[in-house]
């Protein structure tokens, strides 16, 4: 069971929703002038997301737990009313980060409870594994005492491999490939830290659910003000870095994989690291400057200006001795980012997205010659 404080940290859980319902407040109530404090909190929640701020530890006085809890549904309502797809991504990403921040500070049983509700239930470990763990730990009395106190803080958590797959989708890196997991009888064994990382993904999805609903907006002046100011703020972030033009690159020549990754980045989706890597090296190879490339990623929900700038420059060789090559089609395929390959992709000799770009260029120029 979660206490009041904990519930307010994970406002997307069923328990939190029930508690809010139990307070018998209507949307109108929450938007009324008496509750400005809730509205302010909701607004700053969203603004933090737009600014990509780090999560702050709670410093809360009496009554503020309720404010915090109530600010979540209000913030959701405002985000949905603004109806901007970038804002939705930024907001849900930020709420996911927030959940992770607090989860790291919970004991294991709480983490598991929350995991279970978000579709990542713990399973009983595979029989032979348990026997081995038991044997290893039994003689160590001190350690087992410690474990009793803090829950199985050091133990492995076993989750079903399909839950694992669905949750890891947007996390990249070799550590997250199924092939590198402890996989026994359909269960993947993960450590606490990875378990929390997976829960964060689920939380993010849960937050995102239903935000694209375009609710009818009540005639409330305060609400309308907030919506307008947020729209400006969102525009501000977008404009500050907007990918004005794609320089020397010709969109129509892009291979389908790059088109998809580019589209996802511009739509503010969080794309896996290796997809981003592929796009950057590719665009660099077709002659875009790192400044132009940088602008593409400014709508990503986890956008942090200095980090992205560093990454892009690192990959394109601006800030390091090595510059990286664009990946081959094989690499793209095994990374699961060879999106919608078309007829040209099906050609045996087509082994890299760059080649696709080159061929398309040739075709175009010859057809232009023919036309003129």
């Amino acid at each position, binding site marked *: 069971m979660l206490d009041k404080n904990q519930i307010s940290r994970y406002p997307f859980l069923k328990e939190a929703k029930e508690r809010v319902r139990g307070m018998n407040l209507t949307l109108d109530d929450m938007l009324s002038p008496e509750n400005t404090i809730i509205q302010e909190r909701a607004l700053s929640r969203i603004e933090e997301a737009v600014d990509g701020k780090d999560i702050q530890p709670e410093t809360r006085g009496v009554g503020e737990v309720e404010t915090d809890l109530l600010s979540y549904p209000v913030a959701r309502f405002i985000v949905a009313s603004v109806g901007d797809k970038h804002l939705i991504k930024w907001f849900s990403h930020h709420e996911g980060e927030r959940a992770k921040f607090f989860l790291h500070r919970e004991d294991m049983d709480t983490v598991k409870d929350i995991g279970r509700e978000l579709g990542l239930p713990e399973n009983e470990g*595979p029989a032979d*594994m348990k026997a*081995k*763990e038991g044997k*290893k730990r039994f003689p160590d009395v001190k350690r087992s005492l410690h474990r009793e106190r803090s829950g199985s803080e050091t133990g*492995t958590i076993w989750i*079903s*491999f*399909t839950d694992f*797959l*669905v949750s890891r*989708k947007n996390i990249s890196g*070799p*550590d997250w*490939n*199924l*092939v*590198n*997991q*402890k*996989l*026994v*009888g*359909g*269960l993947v*064994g993960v450590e606490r830290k990875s378990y929390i990382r997976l829960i964060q993904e689920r939380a993010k999805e849960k937050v995102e659910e239903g935000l694209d609903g375009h609710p009818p907006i009540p005639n409330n002046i305060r609400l309308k003000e907030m919506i307008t100011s947020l729209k400006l703020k969102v525009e501000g972030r977008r404009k500050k870095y907007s990918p004005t033009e794609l320089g020397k690159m010709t969109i129509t020549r892009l291979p389908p994989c790059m088109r998809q990754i580019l589209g996802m980045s511009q739509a503010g989706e969080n794309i896996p690291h290796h997809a981003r890597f592929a796009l950057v090296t590719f665009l660099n190879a077709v002659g875009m400057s790192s400044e132009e490339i940088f602008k593409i990623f400014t709508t990503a929900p986890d956008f942090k200006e200095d980090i992205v700038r560093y990454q892009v420059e690192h990959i394109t060789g601006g800030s390091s001795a090595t510059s990286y090559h664009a990946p081959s089609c*094989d690499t793209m*395929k*095994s990374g*699961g980012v060879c999106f919608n390959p078309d007829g040209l992709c099906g050609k045996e000799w087509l082994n890299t997205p760059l080649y696709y770009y080159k061929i398309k260029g040739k075709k175009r120029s010859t057809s232009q010659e023919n036309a003129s």
Partner: protein
Amino acid sequence: MRLVDPHMRRSGDNEVSRELRFMSGCFRDHYRREHVIPPYRFTRREWGFFPFGGKMMFRHIGFLKQEEVDSFFRESAPMHAYYSVAYYGDPVLQPMGEKFKTWMGSDLIFDLDADHLPEADSMTYPEQLAEVKEEVKRLLFEFILGDLGLPEEHTYLHFSGGRGYHVHVRSPEVMTLDSRDRRQIVDYITGRNLDFEVLFPPKVKDYNPKYHSYKMTRNFRIRDFGGWVKRIYEGKDALMKELESMERKNQITHLMKIASDGKIKVGEQALGTIVDKIFWESKGKSATRVNESDIFDVFPMPHQLETFLNIVVAFSSIHLKGETDEPVTTDIKRLIRCPGSLHGKTGLKVIEIDKHSIDDFDPLVNAIALSDDPVNVDVQEPFSMSMNGTDWNLEPGPVTVPKYLAYFLVARRLALIS
């Protein structure tokens, strides 16, 4: 004698060849006698058919009742019949993009086919079948029911009617996995993207509390690690056992073959160094260490260890059909051959096999569906194969054979109807 393409030989402009007429007649007779039992939730699936003498597949077909399926097969007797692994709200909707908007989930399919075996070309048909059978057993018991722990009652094994086997998994938890999730499963089975850094992280060895001294090593974390760590560990043991009794020269050839099957680029010299390090330089001491799993200390150069591990992986993984170029498992919209139908290139039936008696299953006996009525054919090429328990050794020229064999010969363009 020149081979005549039966599908091309025409006696008149609008007339089909005798062979084609014979073949489609065989299927017509069969489907009149035997019903095709429609698959699970068939009304939600898209169907596709390839007619005899046709040039393309007819897709986007749907059936609402079992009788419709039945009468379709009876009347059309298609050369090839397929249905979608996907379930759709509206399976006949076109274009595909529109239909896919009503996607409800897809069976998880594995396709093991001889044409993907590294040496398929040099093998006879029965040899290919036997080889694929060994792979499918491992796929099924080690991976699908083993590591992946998928429920046996939802897992179906079928002979494909051609040169391989299909495994269909229909449990709820896999239905909604998307193509990226399925790619992860394929990578797991084929051992692609294994990362030795992740699997074997460095650890402290020989720690001496008195002096606080220690060495760093990597080791098999066999105790608490299943998955590929365990498989590499066991694969290494099996490989070592095979190598132990060999001469140096044979060891190299053996490793070379595994490497090339696994598309690992390595020269003979490099393999020579590897076997020397294990077996010949230290009078077998290293071999003991490899056996005891301390393989990380045997090779002085990291790339030697990596090559050795890669070979062990190739030795322990499975070759799925179209691993890279034609991903069957990851394609959630794919059409798959319909169980119960006949395969137009062999006349054999796509049938379900009891997973536990796969050893007793002989496609060239158990998948025969056509009758043994005598048919006169004109053999074009020497042919020998055992079918339905009889060894056939045919020389070019006229001969009378049972219908199922006649079909097999004609369809593979080894004989004409006389």
